[in-house]
């Protein structure tokens, strides 16, 4: 049992080669990573290091060229609601209301076992969880970017996934909205005890949210460079942590990796 919990997601010897018109592109090599149940892991690295590719592999949107990905001891064969994805650009369907966008997923996962009232309650609960009950009947183009992203998170959470996969979910938002959503996410994850894998390029975001930070080397043929355990007590408070020495050390470690050991590929070329 402990084995399953400790290796809830088990990535073993994964290689990813894209066959493009210009020839083969070796994106990822020798990826070995395990994620425990209830753990919050962020993937960080420079653009083009394949962190989104790795996330898409876990989501099942891509198939690895070599190696194995397991989730709860079962091979990941394709996308499934048990591994819900929060997309960077929210990807809400613009012709559906916020409610309908969430209901679509809820209906698919629980439609066979529950009645309409239960499905409706689940959808409403998800909206309430992200504080958007009032926006139920609004279409995505009628709400702000931050609200859209919250609906995206609600859609993912409403399916009660085993794993929540987030691809730079706050990348397109302004700093204040981002901070606000990070705090909300921390609360939601604490409440739902979700396992989260999140792609980010924001060092503060990574340190604030993560149990472990997976730092990736520059592509092509990127791999995992270092893994940093973040042992800060939860619940975490961003204002208090700003003064915290330990927080500063973690932050420095990630910056060290990104800007000393793995200087930006553009600068390497220049």
């Amino acid at each position, binding site marked *: 049992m402990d084995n399953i919990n400790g290796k809830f997601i088990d990535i073993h010897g994964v290689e990813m080669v894209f066959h493009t018109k210009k020839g083969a592109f070796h994106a990822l090599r020798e990826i070995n990573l395990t994620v425990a149940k209830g753990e919050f892991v962020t993937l960080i690295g420079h653009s083009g290091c394949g962190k989104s590719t790795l996330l898409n592999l876990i989501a*099942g*949107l891509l198939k690895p060229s070599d190696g194995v990905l397991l989730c709860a001891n079962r091979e990941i064969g394709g996308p*499934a609601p048990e591994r819900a994805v929060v997309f*960077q*650009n929210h990807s809400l369907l613009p012709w559906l209301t916020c409610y309908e966008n969430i209901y*679509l997923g809820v209906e*698919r996962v629980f439609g066979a076992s529950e009645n309409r009232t239960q499905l409706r309650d689940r959808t409403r609960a998800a909206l309430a969880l992200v504080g958007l009950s009032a926006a139920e009947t609004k279409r*995505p183009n009628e709400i702000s970017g931050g609200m859209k992203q919250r609906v995206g998170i609600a859609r993912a959470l409403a399916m009660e996934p085993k794993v929540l996969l987030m691809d730079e979910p706050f990348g397109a938002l302004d700093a204040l909205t981002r901070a606000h959503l990070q705090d909300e996410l921390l609360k939601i994850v604490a409440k739902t005890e979700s396992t989260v894998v999140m792609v980010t390029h924001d060092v503060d975001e990574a340190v604030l949210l993560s149990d472990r930070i997976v730092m990736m080397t520059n592509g092509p043929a990127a791999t995992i460079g270092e893994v940093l355990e973040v042992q800060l007590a939860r619940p975490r408070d961003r204002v208090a942590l700003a003064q915290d020495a330990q927080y500063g050390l973690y932050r420095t470690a990630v910056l060290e990796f990104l800007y000393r050991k793995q200087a930006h590929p553009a600068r390497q070329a220049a």
Partner: protein
Amino acid sequence: MGDNAKPVSRSSQAAQANPANHAGHANEEEVTPMVAVLAVRSQRKKVPGSALFLRVAPPLLGLALLVLVWQIIALKTSSFPTPWVTLKEAAVMFSDPFYRNSPNDQGIGWNVLASLQRVGMGFGLAALVGIPLGFAIGRVEFLSRMFGPIISLLRPVSPLAWLPIGLLVFKSANPAAIWSIFICSIWPMIINTAVGVQRVPQDYMNVARVLNLSEWKVLTKILFPSVLPYMLTGVRLSIGTAWLVIVAAEMLTGGVGIGFWVWDEWNNLNVPHIIIAIVVIGVVGLVLEQLLVALAKAFTYEQVNN
């Protein structure tokens, strides 16, 4: 498949441009609001009265110029009626558009309705066949390669060239005219629907895959709403062509209809009626177009972008 696939209305153009923006023209997107702001400012500076003037005056001036040129031509040529004579004729004609003296002598209202009915039939059948076919071609690569060359070959053919085939097969003028409308309406609908299906944003398809939606849900909740603006562009192009073709087809087939009516009045050498018919054909075409533009606007949604 190029030209026809381009939605003309502003809203659907925006919808089409978005996938491109999404691909990484982030800078362009940042610039756009600035331009919009400047545009709003320059509008505000103007007096409301002058904006109204700029909207109303040029079209009126254009119309006046047309009437003037017409008047000059009419004065130089004895066989050509003046605008005033034509207007008086029109007043008489529109005072009773729905009279019926004999099958060959009916009011202009009946003639227009007869033509619209033919267009509706041919066009409806084309939509029934063309839209599902477009979906299939857009979704299945094999079908796209299978039908692509046939469509490319048949699309440039004048619809009237199909009329003899229609007469041969149906042995009657009316179905042959409908057949011509069918064949000219079907191509834009197939092509636009297929292009629309191919351009469904990958993000939406990824959502469908992650949510593990059934093929039916993918069709109704993602593909259909996403393709709808493209489809309606196809419909609009089709109905424009159909209205062009029906006039010509009816001249050849005879019977009741605005096209035949024009030909009939030519045989009677009633030139004012021909001019009135031209205006009526233009107005009906314009109304059809505007109806479909309004319809397309109502069903065009802001596509995903960040």
